[in-house]
């Protein structure tokens, strides 16, 4: 049994992004809240990693941190965000968030799409202008060529009559079309990593399926790694290769989607699985929800964050935090039911 984080490494050729002990704090009137707590995980080239968790578990903040977009009162307290850009490895956590270096990565090597397509596009600029702006920022081509490229991108994301739509303003487009335009903008500079922060949550179910289908298609076409953030396990199942389950700013379980779905080890993951409605499942079985609420990051004690809601809670759970330890190779879990490694021990070692 090896500690999960040690087996990875940005040195490995296929690794694209690696978070090492990343912590993000938010200053509030009641004190400092640690929203992301010594988080470590890796995303490989061409891999889609699904990050799942309830709202407030730190998944979006992690994404923002990778973009260098953590806003005041939040700040990166410690840790590294290592990103392989060509031959060099850049620690994004150390870059000036308003500096040139991070701006050259943003929208170029790493791009992002957001939850709210209705408000994420600037209402006073045309769709085409907004896409062309991203292209012009990162490529040395003429304005006219950038506009042409923007139309091509709109076509690539399946927007009908792309030339006309490029001249339209965001309020002319439906939510699904706007999200397609956002995707076109994000893919326009051929990024190595696409961060999708709940891209389908605000959309209707049928539109959701279309957008997911589009993203799967583009993933193959553009060969980008995707960090897919969602609270919807169903979406993960159709999109992701790898899954990271987050709870209170930490990963509690990780592994290939197929393995984790077949045999979830953490009680939180198990709880989430049981709360998915299934068409095939027995009708009599009642849909379960996880009892209790997520504690506030301000109230985190010395023990496991899930202890207050866990059906299998033991004494040790309230005293120490379990480390994320690999179980049988590909799957890792942070739970004392499966091992006795505490967070402190793993850090000492």
């Amino acid at each position, binding site marked *: 049994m090896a500690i999960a984080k040690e087996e990875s490494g940005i040195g490995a050729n296929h690794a694209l992004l690696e978070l090492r002990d990343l912590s993000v704090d938010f200053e509030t009137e009641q004190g400092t809240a640690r929203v992301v707590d010594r988080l470590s995980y890796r995303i490989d080239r061409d891999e889609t990693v699904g990050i799942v968790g309830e709202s407030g578990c730190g998944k979006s903040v992690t994404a923002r941190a990778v973009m260098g*977009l953590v806003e005041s009162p939040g700040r990166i307290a410690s840790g590294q965000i290592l990103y392989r850009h060509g031959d060099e490895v850049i620690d994004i956590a150390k870059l000036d968030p308003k500096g040139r270096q991070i701006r050259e990565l943003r929208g170029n090597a790493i791009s992002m799409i957001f939850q709210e397509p209705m408000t994420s596009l600037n209402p006073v600029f045309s769709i085409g202008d907004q896409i062309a702006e991203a292209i012009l920022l990162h490529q040395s081509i003429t304005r006219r060529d950038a506009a042409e490229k923007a139309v091509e991108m709109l076509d690539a994301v399946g927007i009908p009559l792309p030339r006309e739509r490029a001249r339209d303003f965001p309020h002319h487009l439906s939510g699904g079309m706007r999200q397609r335009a956002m995707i076109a903008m994000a893919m326009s500079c051929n990024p190595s990593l696409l961060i999708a922060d709940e891209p389908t949550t605000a959309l209707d179910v049928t539109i959701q399926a279309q957008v997911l289908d589009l993203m799967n298609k583009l993933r193959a076409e553009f060969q980008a790694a995707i960090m897919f953030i969602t609270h919807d396990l169903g979406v993960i199942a159709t999109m992701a290769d790898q899954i990271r389950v987050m709870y209170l700013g930490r990963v509690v379980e990780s592994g290939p989607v197929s393995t984790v779905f077949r045999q979830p080890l953490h009680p939180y993951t198990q709880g989430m699985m049981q709360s998915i409605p299934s068409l095939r499942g027995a009708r009599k079985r009642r849909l379960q929800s996880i009892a209790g609420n997520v504690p506030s990051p301000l109230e985190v004690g010395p023990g496991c964050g899930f202890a207050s809601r866990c059906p299998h809670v033991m004494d040790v759970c309230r005293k120490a935090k379990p480390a994320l330890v690999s179980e049988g190779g590909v799957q890792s879990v942070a739970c004392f039911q499966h091992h006795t490694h505490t967070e402190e021990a793993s850090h000492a070692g």
Partner: protein
Amino acid sequence: MLRMIIYRLLLIIPVGLVLVSFLFALFHLIPGDPAQLMAGDNAPEELVQAIRQAYGFDQPVHIQYWNYLIRVLQGDLGVSTYSREPVIDVVWPRVINTAQLAGLAMLFAIVISLILGCISAMFWNHPVDKSVTVFSLVGICTPVFVSGLIAIYFFSVYLGWLPIGGKATWKHYILPVVTLGAYQAAMFTRMVRSCMVDALGRDFIVTARAKGVAERLVVFKHALRNALLPIITLFGLGLGHTLGGSVVTETIFNWPGLGRLMVDSILTRDLPVTQGAIQIFAAIFIAVNLIVDVLYAWVDPRIRYD
């Protein structure tokens, strides 16, 4: 867009009619006999009678109202009881002087407030932001007649650099324009800042940053362009306030404008001039309001293209 402009233009007719009627009614509400007022307290009865006849005060109210309406529509605002000149000839040069003062003051205020407001929003909650906030607060709490007098004392009396009042050379423009402009700038800065803070908190700002747009462009292109919608309305309302403030400013600096004419005519009981000045002011306010609405529609693509 064209339809909206036509609609707004047509709307002027009822608004203007209501205003003119309102003014007519108001001046008939003034206690006392208007003829007596115009003639003066100690005027002989024959003079009062003559004025009454000349102005038609002896006729029934509805006839008076009708005549008044016709005259206003013809641009005839009556004759000044003080200078015996047609009101329109008295008022017109004053309108131009006031337009100069208010226009330059607005320009000053817009430039200063856009710069300070944007800087303040960029440095949100930082000492820079706080000092801008304090500056604008002090400005808002210092009425034009206080800052104007302080400026006169300092620049004209103490240093002797600038003239005390009047309107002859370019030097005469500086104090009135800056005094009036600074007050408006303080008002605007506060509002520009809050519009900008609001715009910078919107989702599309994150999108722009995530694209790799430089912070300078995020503020001055993405945020400012959006904040412009409310800001233009503010400036439109502000132009009204600047014209209101010009009344006081003109009095302080002895500026031969419409506002001072209005105040002087009130103090000398020159009723036709007062009425005329108010009508011109009202017409200006309505025109300004119309222009602001059209401008707003032009800036907002959601209105422009629908």
